[in-house]
């Protein structure tokens, strides 16, 4: 996971998970275009999830598919609870998720990356959102299925959590799960999201910590030399 990878965007993140390669950019808060979508008391969050034509084994048409449109909606709804949009009335915050290479679980990686990009842009948030998918293969609950595993598996359940208040901002499922299997998978997903959350926090701080270390060390040695 990396943040600040794009120059023009206000915030950005790049995430590699298995064979997934996803780039996320945030522009905003910015003037609403078209003006009529602006809300008087808060910012409007817009999200576009899109897969590059070369991201899948067989070339995918660049036109947005129904799946991409549904995912754009659910991803937006996964992040909305985290954004303190009241700070910027009459603006939009635009989120762009580009899947450069896909291998299952892209919406989760996209949500995790989008949280990083939003935080990187300095947009005030209640907390970060982390996401992961659990599935069922050969009767057993498994974590983070790849594309082939998903196609052969019996269930796929993406979950997104805001660990700060331990709330669920996304949950979807397709396949077959008994009530018990659901509970087992859900608990594993929640725990995993907490782990991912620790990584997210570290990534957001790491460049600043690196600079801090670098210059404060130099200062120490420089001071030492001056004193000599």
């Amino acid at each position, binding site marked *: 996971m990396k943040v600040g990878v794009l120059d023009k965007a*206000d915030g950005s993140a790049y995430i590699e998970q298995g064979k997934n390669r996803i780039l996320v950019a945030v522009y905003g808060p910015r003037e609403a275009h078209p003006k009529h979508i602006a809300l008087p008391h808060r910012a409007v969050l817009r999200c576009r999830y899109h897969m590059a034509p070369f991201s899948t084994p067989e070339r995918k048409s660049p036109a947005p598919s129904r799946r991409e449109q549904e995912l754009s909606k659910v991803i937006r709804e996964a992040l909305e609870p985290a954004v303190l949009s009241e700070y910027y*009335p009459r603006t939009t915050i635009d989120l762009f998720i580009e899947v450069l290479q896909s291998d299952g679980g892209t919406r989760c990686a996209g949500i995790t990356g989008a949280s990083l990009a939003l935080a990187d842009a300095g947009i005030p948030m209640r907390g970060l959102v982390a996401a992961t998918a659990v599935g069922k293969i050969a009767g057993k609950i498994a974590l983070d299925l790849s594309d082939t595993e998903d196609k052969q598996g019996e269930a796929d359940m993406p979950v997104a959590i805001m660990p700060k208040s331990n709330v669920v901002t996304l949950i979807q499922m397709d396949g077959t799960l008994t009530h018990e299997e659901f509970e087992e998978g859900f608990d594993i997903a929640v725990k995993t999201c907490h782990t991912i959350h620790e990584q997210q*926090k570290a990534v*957001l*701080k790491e460049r600043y910590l690196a600079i801090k270390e670098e*210059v404060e060390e130099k200062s120490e040695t420089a001071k030492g030399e001056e004193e000599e």
Partner: protein
Amino acid sequence: MYVEKKQLVAPGEILAEGKYLSGENTHREGERIYSSRVGVVDLVGDRLGVIPLKGRYIPHVGDVVVGRIVDIAMSGWIVDIEAPYPALLPASETFGHRGPRGRMDLSRMFDVGDLVVSEVLAFDRTRDPLITAKGPGLGKITGGRIIELSPTKVPRLIGRKGSMISLIKKGTGANIVVGQNGIILVSGRSRDSENAAIHAIRMIEREAHTRGLTDRIQVMLRTKMRGE
């Protein structure tokens, strides 16, 4: 209190519980105060705040800002001040204005693309900022170099009671106009003096969150200007 002053925090991280006040870039949920952005913890008395490391400029009345004319309106100009809201500079808020002016006259005063130093007269959640170019130090920019800085670093550039910016001005002999919106105008007697000032600004941008910055800037300016 769970964190130390000057500690680096991420959105959603808990700062303190109990008798503290929720300051800038923090939010309160029940008894607990959390960070809303990536930044550095600041404590003034009982007030806990987070100094953000990145973010877009939000206008405040009284701010001096550097903007670019993007359009000519009925009785004034639309100015891009790098905020999520376009600013309006009414013709009545400039010198040399007498009675209603046509579009041709307005463009002779300030044309699209011109840069102007102005002050924010009015701004609230329901309307776009109103700026003025009447006043000492305000008006069209005719020379110098423009540097863009993240607006969150401007307070560090100015320093306590203007200490940092004075240090740079004295150390380089350059004239520096600092826009609160992160647009800085540098004009020096020589290329070297301008370059030294710009170098200082870039250093502050990179190291704003570290300790000992003032000393390092001092050292850097001394070495740079020694070449003169």
